[in-house]
């Protein structure tokens, strides 16, 4: 059931709330068969984008298509798209089973499927309890259960990790992966790079409502300027100007040490050898995903706490 066309197509999406620009000229595709991480600092427009994709908010300009059509034109959308935007999107007085029943009936979904999804998310034993008594983690599970009701080909989850214990996190990671392996489309938002590194294969990174990156996890890391080469040489003072002549940044990192960005180990080694400079160490230091994320979003973090604090950490 591999598809050739993208399941979700966002084109020139712009959304203003009054004078606030939440999303600006955002375009991307979400492909089936892999987990796509939708990353950005808090307030970067992730939730707004998901709300427009799901037809809850009307775009100011641009469009978002799901399986080739605007979401609002789907007649029984639960069979195509399962979504959880908010772990508390239920009436607290209704039991988990009744909540799912109300949604299932709206799409003519068979009743036995309700018990199946309750079992799948591990809420069978509390299915008759008022959902208002649920913990955040149980609310997440109920939200995911409602997303799975129609056994959809597309799954959209906004910050599904929030409030889950380690066991729950592992469970959802496996769920998302197996979904993608079956050829379905998974779009999952997060402000936690580290989590996405473990779950997603592809990343869409936004900051202040603009697209910053749309690439594989590996490429996002590789493209980061934080990839640097550490050089140890007794002639470091002589090497630095040689690199600078070629437009390569070299910063002194203590006696005999340089941190070089914008060049490969091969290039640095060649430059050194032509000038007969002795090299004792030449090592590539790859940026972590967290650093790559910082790099991408540094200028677009809406709520600066302290420049030295990663947005992911400050918000977690």
């Amino acid at each position, binding site marked *: *059931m591999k*598809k050739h*066309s993208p*399941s979700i197509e966002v084109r020139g999406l712009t959304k203003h709330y009054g004078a606030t620009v939440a999303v600006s000229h955002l375009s991307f595709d979400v492909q*089936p068969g892999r987990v796509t991480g939708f990353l950005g600092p808090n307030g970067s427009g992730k939730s707004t984008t998901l*709300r427009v994709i*799901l*037809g*809850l*908010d*009307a*775009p100011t300009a641009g*469009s978002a298509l799901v*399986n*080739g*059509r*605007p*979401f*609002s*034109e*789907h*007649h*029984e*959308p*639960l*069979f*195509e*798209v399962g*979504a959880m*935007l*908010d772990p*508390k*999107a*239920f*009436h*607290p*007085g*209704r*039991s988990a089973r*009744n*909540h799912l*029943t*109300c*949604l299932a*009936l*709206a*799409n*003519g*979904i*068979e009743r036995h*499927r309700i018990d199946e999804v309750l079992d799948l998310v591990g809420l069978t034993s509390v299915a008759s309890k008022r959902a208002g008594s649920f913990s955040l983690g149980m609310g997440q599970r109920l939200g995911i259960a*409602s997303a799975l009701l*129609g*056994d*959809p*080909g*597309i799954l959209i989850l906004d910050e599904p990790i929030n409030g889950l214990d380690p066991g729950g996190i592992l469970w959802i990671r496996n769920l998302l992966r197996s979904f993608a392996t079956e*050829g*379905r489309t998974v779009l999952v938002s997060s402000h936690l790079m580290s989590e996405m590194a473990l779950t997603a294969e592809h990343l869409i990174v936004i900051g202040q409502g603009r697209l910053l990156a749309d690439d594989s996890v590996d490429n996002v890391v590789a493209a980061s300027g934080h990839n640097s080469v550490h050089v140890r040489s007794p002639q470091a003072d002589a090497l630095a100007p040689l690199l600078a002549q070629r437009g390569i940044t070299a910063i002194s990192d203590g006696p005999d040490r340089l941190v070089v960005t914008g060049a490969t180990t091969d290039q640095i080694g060649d430059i050194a050898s032509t000038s007969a400079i002795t090299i004792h160490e030449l090592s590539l230091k790859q940026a972590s995903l967290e650093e790559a994320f910082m790099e991408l979003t540094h200028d677009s973090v809406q709520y600066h706490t302290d420049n030295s604090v990663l947005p992911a950490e400050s918000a977690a």
Partner: protein
Amino acid sequence: MSSTELVLDPPATSDPALRPVTAVPDVGRADTAGPPVAEPVRSVFPNLLRSEWAKLRTVRSTYWSLAAAFAAMVGLGAIISATQTGSHTGSFDPVSISLSGVLLAQLAIGVLGVLLVTSEYSTGMIRSTFIAAPQRREVIASKAAIFGLVAFVVGTVASFITFFVGQSMLGSRGVSLGAAGALRSVIGVGLYLGLLGVFAVGLGTIIRNGAGAIAALFGLLLVLPAVLQALPTSLRDSIDKFLPGNAGQAIFHTVNDTTSLSPWLGIAVFAIYAAASLGIGLILVRRRDA
């Protein structure tokens, strides 16, 4: 505003959408990953009506509010009938007296109708609802239809009971269901409450905030008539009868009163209010972000 103009469902024929609740065929997983195929176009109403009926049945506030409306109607009707000291003069209206509990019951029905919508907004349920059913107008229309019907049925049953209880309390001054205008009044109470339910669902959809919508409802039903008392009599009498509550309540007055509309004209005016409230709600629910 929205680029996602919704094509409304064509008239439902005897299509597969009208399937029974217990046996729902063809809901196995469709090949959702296939290229977009033209869906067999059919009405979303059967599913949405069932969903809204389930929503109404599965929260406690429904039972509390309906029980309160029932108790207010029968209890207050009995008390007022038992304490009546008037006698058969020109303005004595035994039918209307026995039904006076509706003035209290209407508040319970109205509040419940408002909350059916506003509680979805306050809890976040509305997003789950619209993700399952993006046809927002049809969702609200289904809610109004289900609740209007329930309010009509509960109101009519309570009205019959309170009529017989009240007439027995009135003793020799009581009348039978065969009296002029009696049956029309008793069923009229149900009609009034049913339309009030639709009116309240519309109001909740327009205002979305529970406290605000309840305040607006009470303002229209209770405060506005009181405020009009400040106007000169001639002006007040010509406006007063067109207020929503006064117009609708004309359906259960059997004694002709020059200050109110005739019963059927009154309920028709009230129906226009209900339709306007729902209509504005349907327009706004499409336009606004959820």
